[in-house]
């Protein structure tokens, strides 16, 4: 996505020296970060890295052990009320009331926000329309799909017109189509000028949506930058060609003159950062003479990021 970088005049989130431990286990270790107003900030990390803990601290649900954090200049510790009125939180698991209808869920939030009845109804109708929930508005979420529940959850978050939204793994568990819809929703929110902290386990998702990405590894930020800066530090996409015998591998390596070969697996990895064009190029250079047994395209994922940044593969860090 190519959105012009906004001139971040104000900071939406500012965090310094944040620490959190549960007993012996250090969950967040000296985290600094800053999110500009209107920015989409991606917090990328595997399961157990500390993403949810970060979101819970920033949404005033739990206090940090050390460090300071503020939201639009309001300190989390001394002005939690001001912070809460500026943020919207969509947690990792949809928090909707399963015994109320979709519309009643929105009304409930509207009442708690002390919206006037006419405004409450207008806002709910508008959000139901926007998130394609008009048809199911009179049904309870028990009948909703995962994607619909997520959309209702986000609609509830938006009832109060928050200026900063936390989205904790908004697409985990969704089917590919709902994931695309969610991406579009996040882009639309960003286009409205809302600041967003998005956590994800998928590099592709952070790349697609975020203006800036921080990589979280066992509670530490190991890299931070724009998606482009980050991708420069990791191996790009490449083609993986497998051959039936060593002779074919030799021939291919000679005619392509690039990439790395693996003689035991009879595999040749060729950088392919220009997508289909690289593919056509490689196939043309191989010609008809060399039989390729198998071809796949490898796009970098979180594992590659972690391998490049920390030298160790990402793994679940729950223990």
């Amino acid at each position, binding site marked *: 996505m190519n959105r012009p970088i906004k001139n971040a005049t104000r900071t939406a989130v500012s965090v310094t020296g944040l620490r959190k431990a*549960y007993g012996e286990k250090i969950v967040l270790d000296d985290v600094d970060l800053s999110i500009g107003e209107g920015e989409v900030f991606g917090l990328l990390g*595997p399961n157990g890295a500390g993403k*949810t803990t970060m979101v*819970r601290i920033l*949404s*005033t*649900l*739990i*206090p940090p052990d050390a460090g300071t954090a503020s939201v639009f200049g309001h300190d989390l510790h001394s002005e939690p*009320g001001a912070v*809460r*009125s500026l*943020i919207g*939180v969509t*947690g*990792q*698991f*949809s*928090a909707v*009331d*399963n*015994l*109320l209808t979709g519309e*009643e869920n929105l009304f*409930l*939030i509207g*009442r*708690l*926000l*002390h919206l006037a009845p006419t405004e409450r109804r207008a806002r709910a109708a508008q959000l139901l329309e926007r998130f394609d929930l008009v048809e199911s508005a009179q049904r*309870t979420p028990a009948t909703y799909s995962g994607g619909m529940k997520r959309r209702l959850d986000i609609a*509830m978050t938006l009832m*109060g017109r928050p200026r900063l939204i936390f989205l904790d793994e908004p697409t*985990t*568990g*969704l*089917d*590919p189509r709902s994931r695309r819809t969610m991406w579009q929703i996040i882009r639309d929110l960003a286009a409205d000028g809302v600041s967003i902290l998005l956590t994800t*386990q*998928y*590099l592709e998702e952070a790349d697609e949506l975020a203006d800036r990405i921080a990589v979280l590894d066992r509670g530490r930020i190991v890299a931070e930058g724009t998606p482009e800066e980050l991708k420069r530090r990791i191996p790009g996409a490449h083609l993986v060609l497998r051959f039936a015998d060593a002779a074919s591998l030799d021939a291919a390596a000679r005619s392509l003159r690039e990439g790395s070969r693996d003689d035991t697996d009879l595999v040749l990895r060729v950088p392919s950062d220009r997508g289909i064009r690289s593919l056509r190029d490689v196939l043309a250079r191989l010609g008809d003479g060399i039989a390729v047994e198998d071809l796949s395209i490898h796009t970098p*994922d*979180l*594992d590659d990021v972690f391998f490049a940044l920390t030298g160790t*593969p*990402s*793994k*679940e860090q729950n223990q």
Partner: protein
Amino acid sequence: MTALTLAIHDATTMIGRELKHTQRFPLLLVGTIMVPVVMLLLFDYILGGPIGHGLGNAARGAPYVDFLVPGILLMTVAASCGPTAINVNTDMTGGIIDRIRAMAVSRGALLAGHVGGSVVRTLAATIVVTGVAVLVGFRATASVLDWFAVVGILAALSFALAWLSAALGLVAKSVAGANGSTLPIQFLLPFLSSTFVPADSMPADVRWFAAHQPFTPVVESLRALLTGAPVGSTAYLALAWCAAIAVTSAITISAACSRNRRVTRRVTVATRPSMPSP
């Protein structure tokens, strides 16, 4: 609006939500009515003969059902502990509590909603159970003023037990655990008090326990009020117990909240695992 009117507004919103829940899912209310009704029928028709015979002076010549019904009303209040703990736990594990805590909503509004909803539900259940009691022959000799006192004591007990159940619902790790942790209140405490038989007839150590637990003064003041006997200071003891339970539970809850236990414990299944398992 002042902070207080806002807090009342928020609590009213949450009570409204609770009542809508009851309307959508009446099963929990039905359970709260069924348990005491079954106990009433069981004790009155099946065990009532021999027990009534053995009661002698305790029943003061009245049929056993008149002795029994005050205890059944207490059981009705106790039976709503299960639903309250279940509802609170559902909100916690379902993320609703977190959602509301991250909003600029009066602290405690959500639990006030659960407690208020529970009291309304419980009083509705006691009306139905009293109706059934009258059908099976219960006759009260209480004055209008006595009836007000009965309702007051039931409401106070309901309020206290609702806070206690809310605390149990917050602490429990699952809905089933939440319900399970209220079972001693629902069944054990009533049996170990003078709910079904006078405490005097029990073995010495049980008698000691019965004399010092909250349900005994509650059931004895209800019984005195409904049968027109002198109430004495038992009613004050009952109310003191209720206040103690409510206050202790509320303090425990606010302490637990500021310790900030981890509350989201649900697991999800990622459809797209992006990492190979090591």
